[in-house]
């Protein structure tokens, strides 16, 4: 056993710096200890299990009473007890040793192995070591690629002369432990951030999409394999039955991008609710981004659909062009993108118009769906069109896009896709509806759409919509309560005009007072022919209106 005390290591009470020397022949039990500590199976464990198993093996190999790992906290420049056997109190009490002080602090500061023969007469900072009755200590630094990550030390309850063989075993253990800890620690930090970002991202995206009569929407979001990004989509109702559809992609990844995404989605939604058109809405979001204290940039596109006409106002701030797909084809929408949000001050966003024919679907997506190394963007957008063409529903469309365009293996970037379809208009409307006043606005929307399809003029559409809405109001007010009730609306067209039947399942009630009878007055004034049929099972109002121009 060679004990050294070289000059460059300042002597400290009771501590001996141990410099490893090459040992000629290792005894058999030591070879076995090396093998046990180098066991590849260890690397498959998570950090907790890995440390637990490693410490047990060290304790066994060196036949010591205690073994502990303290990790370096770069923030406070302290060593923090992370795992221990025999002195679990170290971890439980969260022992912190400043680097440079005491036994472990010196190992860390000087990156040397230190032997303490007699704890009672040595410079020891941690009281637990004495309390536990430890007599002798041996510790080594944990170093990865030249960087200190912590200290590994063992202790004996009986006085023990730790020597070169013990040191060799401990160093094998340290060499094994250090990269494992580092990898696991980095991994768990990334994992934690990933988890936080995922939850954040999920909570920032809409919980459910809107489905109004005649318009259906669907969307998908897929986080990247390694971390979340800043992709978002949104669908919301606007005044006068219009629908807003938005998509965006914040530059960057991780929690920050996800948080920024949430702010931009909210800002866009709020401006959109104030009825600014798509271009002005994006300009206002741009001003919002410009006003942020930190650098931020994002691309976004926003469209407003008028469901009764299929007209779409659309604007893009540096976002990829949306596509329109139908049963037998598709096209890339010609939207000249303006500069991305946050790119430069007072940018102007241009607005474009397009019409979504019944059956056509407008699809927004983010670059994660179409960007592939080595493939020009326009080629993969064409590929997307070919994939989406003929999809019968928005759900099928999104599924196809994800199944075909998104690689099955590692996803490099996150992916968002949102689709809105102007549904085919049937010659006959046959709706079963909840007896809830909230449904009335949606019914009017469906009626306007259908009436336009039947060739009704603006004033005819207005009057008929009013009359049928009144009939539905009647059905809702007369519906059985308090149980959830339903009523039906049937609309059909013939050469002479349009016929509507609104039927509830409640008994007809005599309208109370003049105010309540006003609905029927409106119906009679707006329609050419009105019948109210009451029976034991319910009431139906049959209305006809001529559609001569």
């Amino acid at each position, binding site marked *: 056993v060679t004990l050294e005390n070289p000059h460059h290591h300042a002597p400290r009470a009771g501590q001996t710096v141990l410099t490893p020397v090459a040992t000629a022949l290792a005894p058999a039990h030591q070879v076995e200890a090396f093998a046990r500590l180098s066991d590849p199976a260890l690397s498959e464990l998570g950090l907790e299990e890995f440390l637990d198993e490693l410490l047990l093996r060290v304790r066994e190999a060196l036949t010591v009473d205690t073994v502990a790992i303290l990790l370096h906290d770069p923030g406070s420049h302290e060593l923090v007890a992370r795992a221990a056997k025999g002195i679990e109190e170290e971890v439980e009490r969260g022992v912190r040793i400043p680097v440079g002080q005491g036994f472990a602090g010196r190992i860390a500061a000087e990156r040397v192995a230190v032997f303490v023969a007699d704890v009672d007469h040595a410079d020891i900072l941690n009281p637990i070591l004495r309390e536990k009755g430890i007599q002798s200590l041996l510790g080594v630094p944990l170093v990865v690629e030249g960087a200190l990550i912590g200290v590994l030390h063992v202790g004996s309850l009986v006085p023990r002369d730790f020597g070169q063989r013990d040191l060799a075993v401990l160093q094998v253990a340290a060499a094994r432990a250090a990269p494992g800890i580092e990898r696991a620690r980095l991994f768990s930090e990334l994992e934690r951030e990933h988890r936080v970002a995922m939850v954040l991202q999920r909570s920032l995206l809409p919980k459910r999409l809107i489905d109004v009569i005649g318009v259906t929407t669907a969307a998908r979001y897929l986080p990247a394999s390694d971390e979340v990004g800043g992709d978002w989509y949104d669908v*919301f*109702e*606007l*005044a*006068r039955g219009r629908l807003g559809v938005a998509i965006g992609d914040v530059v960057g990844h991780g929690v920050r991008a996800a948080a920024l995404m949430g702010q931009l989605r909210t800002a866009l939604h709020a401006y959109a*609710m104030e009825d600014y058109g798509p271009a002005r809405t994006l300009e206002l979001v741009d001003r919002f981004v410009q006003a942020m204290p930190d650098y931020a940039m994002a691309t976004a596109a926003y469209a407003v659909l008028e469901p009764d006409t299929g007209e779409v106002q659309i604007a893009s701030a540096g976002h990829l062009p949306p596509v329109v797909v139908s049963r037998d084809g598709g096209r890339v929408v010609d939207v000249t993108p303006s500069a991305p949000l946050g790119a430069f001050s007072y940018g102007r966003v241009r607005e474009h118009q397009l019409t979504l024919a019944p059956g056509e679907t407008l699809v927004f997506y983010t670059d994660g769906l179409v960007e592939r190394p080595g493939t020009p963007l326009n080629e993969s957008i064409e590929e997307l069109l070919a994939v989406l063409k003929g999809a019968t529903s928005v759900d099928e469309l999104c599924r196809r896009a994800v199944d075909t365009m998104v690689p099955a293996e590692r996803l490099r970037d996150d992916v968002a896709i949102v689709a809105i379809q102007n549904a085919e208009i049937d010659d006959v409307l046959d709706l079963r509806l909840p007896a809830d*006043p*909230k449904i*009335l*606005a949606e019914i*009017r929307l469906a009626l306007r759409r259908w009436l336009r399809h039947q060739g009704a003029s603006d*004033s005819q559409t*207005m*009057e008929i919509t*009013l009359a049928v*809405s*009144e009939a539905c*109001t009647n059905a*809702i*007010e007369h519906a059985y309560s308090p149980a959830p009730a339903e009523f039906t609306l049937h609309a059909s067209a013939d050469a002479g005009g349009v016929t509507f039947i609104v039927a509830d399942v409640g008994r007809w009630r005599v309208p109370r007072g003049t*105010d*309540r009878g*006003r*609905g029927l*007055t*409106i119906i009679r*004034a*707006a329609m050419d022919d009105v019948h109210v049929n009451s029976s034991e099972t319910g009431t139906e109002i049959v209305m006809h209106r001529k559609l001569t121009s």
Partner: protein
Amino acid sequence: VKLADVQFSDRERVVIARLSGEIDLSNAESIENAIAEATPNHALALILDVSALDYLDSAGIHLIYKLREKLRARGQALRLVIPADSPANDALRLAGVSRNIDTADSLDAALAEFSDEQRAAEVPDPGSV
């Protein structure tokens, strides 16, 4: 979704409520309550501007009548601003109640009416409403 919106403003002792969007059975009552709430007791009158409404039906007409009753009980007048070619006017016409409610073609016309009244009487006379 926000089906309708109300924007309030004051001109002297006249409260102006501008309605926009659509009024039906789903929101008529809460709008009525909001307007009644926003009209203080010392107000001389309420101008209800429905020019920007996209839709109004019997539930909305009912709202106007009930609001008029409430205001009348407090000695306050109600003036409806309703242009001839507005959707709200079509509803009133079809319901046959156009002539039952005091209306003005524009907000300025309604305001002018009240500023005359305001000058004429420092204390509002409930009987004149």
